[in-house]
């Protein structure tokens, strides 16, 4: 005891270090989940951050709009051309609509449920994000109040974002696909028979392999989730950036650039 009193500073620092190491271990064992106290603190912070983030997003969008005026103008022209093209396609699709109705009737008769009951999505806005480190974890303004549960799927207009790792009363903490080691099963949109598995690599991209080494997967191919695992079928993952053959593993290894731009995420949808 005397020794501890004589070395008070050392004792205090060691105590704090040990306590924090214990907190990290517990947090790791509970897969990043917080205690009751942590959830309460997060709910309180969320009440302050929500209006602040609304203002910030507004300012950010206005500034970005002013800076990229020419780009927006160019994009507008492109979109006009695309609308014309889509209108033509739309008339073709209306013919197929009748066919779809018939198929839906058929699926009901088989009790088929698309996305295993996850067909309804909840829209959410990012309210808290720490940009002082490169690990993409953020909080959104939808929680148990909107029926969100852990491991629900998070997407945005461009594709797969990640999954819900913790849920509060009116907030959820989301971890991106780039910050976790989970395998994501995929298939190629161009040729549905080409399947494989991808996961985050050390460069902030996705890397994986194709099941059939003879499958003709090429640079630029779009990958979507195959429905195996926690992610439902048909969500866009990314585009193939590089295809290589690993002689040691005897597998066709691919590098994928995610379609989601994690730098500019503001709104997401969470699948129930």
């Amino acid at each position, binding site marked *: 005891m005397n020794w501890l009193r004589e070395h008070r500073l050392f004792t205090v*620092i060691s105590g*704090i*270090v040990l306590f*924090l*190491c*214990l*907190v*990290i271990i*517990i*947090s*790791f064992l509970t897969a*990043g989940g*917080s205690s009751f106290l*942590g959830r309460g*603190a*997060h709910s309180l*912070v*969320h009440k*302050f*951050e929500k209006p*602040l*983030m609304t*203002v*910030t997003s507004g*300012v*950010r969008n206005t*500034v970005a709009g002013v800076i990229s005026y020419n780009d927006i103008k160019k994009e507008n022209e492109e979109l006009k051309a695309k609308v014309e093209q889509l209108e033509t396609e739309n008339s073709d699709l209306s013919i197929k609509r009748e066919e779809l109705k018939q198929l839906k009737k058929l699926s009901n008769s088989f009790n088929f449920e698309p996305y295993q009951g996850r067909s309804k999505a909840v829209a959410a806005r990012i*309210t*808290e*994000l*720490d*940009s*002082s*480190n*490169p*690990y*993409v*974890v*953020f*909080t959104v303004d939808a929680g148990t109040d909107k029926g969100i549960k852990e491991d629900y799927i998070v997407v945005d207009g461009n594709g797969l974002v990640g999954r819900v*790792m913790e849920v509060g009363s009116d907030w959820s*903490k989301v*971890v991106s696909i*780039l*910050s*976790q*080691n989970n395998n994501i099963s995929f298939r190629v949109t161009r040729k549905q028979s080409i399947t494989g598995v991808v*996961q*985050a*690599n*050390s*460069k*902030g991209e996705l890397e994986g392999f194709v099941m059939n080494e003879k499958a003709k997967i090429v640079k630029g191919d779009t990958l979507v989730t195959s429905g195996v695992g926690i992610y439902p079928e048909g969500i866009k993952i990314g585009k193939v950036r590089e295809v290589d053959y690993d002689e040691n593993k005897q597998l066709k290894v691919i590098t994928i650039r995610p379609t989601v731009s*994690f*730098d500019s995420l503001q709104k997401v949808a969470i699948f129930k």
Partner: protein
Amino acid sequence: MSFKRVLLLFALCFLAQLSVVNAITFRNMGPDLIMCMMIAITYLYDDGYRSIPFALFFGLLLDVCVNQYVGITPLIYLFVGIFATAARIWLNAEKLITMAVTGAIATVIFQTAYFIIMKILGSPFGLIYILEREPVFIIYNVIVLSIMFGIMHTKAEEYHNDRYTI
């Protein structure tokens, strides 16, 4: 600097960190206001090391709100705080350049330590990926530290007899 003033400054930094800072980020990278505030107070005030517990508390809150695992940020803040306190003893704390260099080294310590702990816990990111982003974080933190130095240096001189009254 009084207890209340330090608490208020850290609370403001914490709130701004999760929201306002995102308006000035470059490719989702921005400054670490809490760490910068801790270094600035440690440097400019005689008993500035007493700001470290505040940084630990708000670092813990930061982890609870937006980080994958809780406890990593305050643990590294502690090491950075000790480093800043030691640097203040050996270097000239009155000069902006010394504080800027301390801030740059502190950023490297923070990012590297965070990477090591996250790697142990199973993060897929590689060291090269982290180091590639390091210059942006350093630039941001040095800019923020310079602004804080500019504002607080005058205040520190004005209230040079001010001490904590906890």
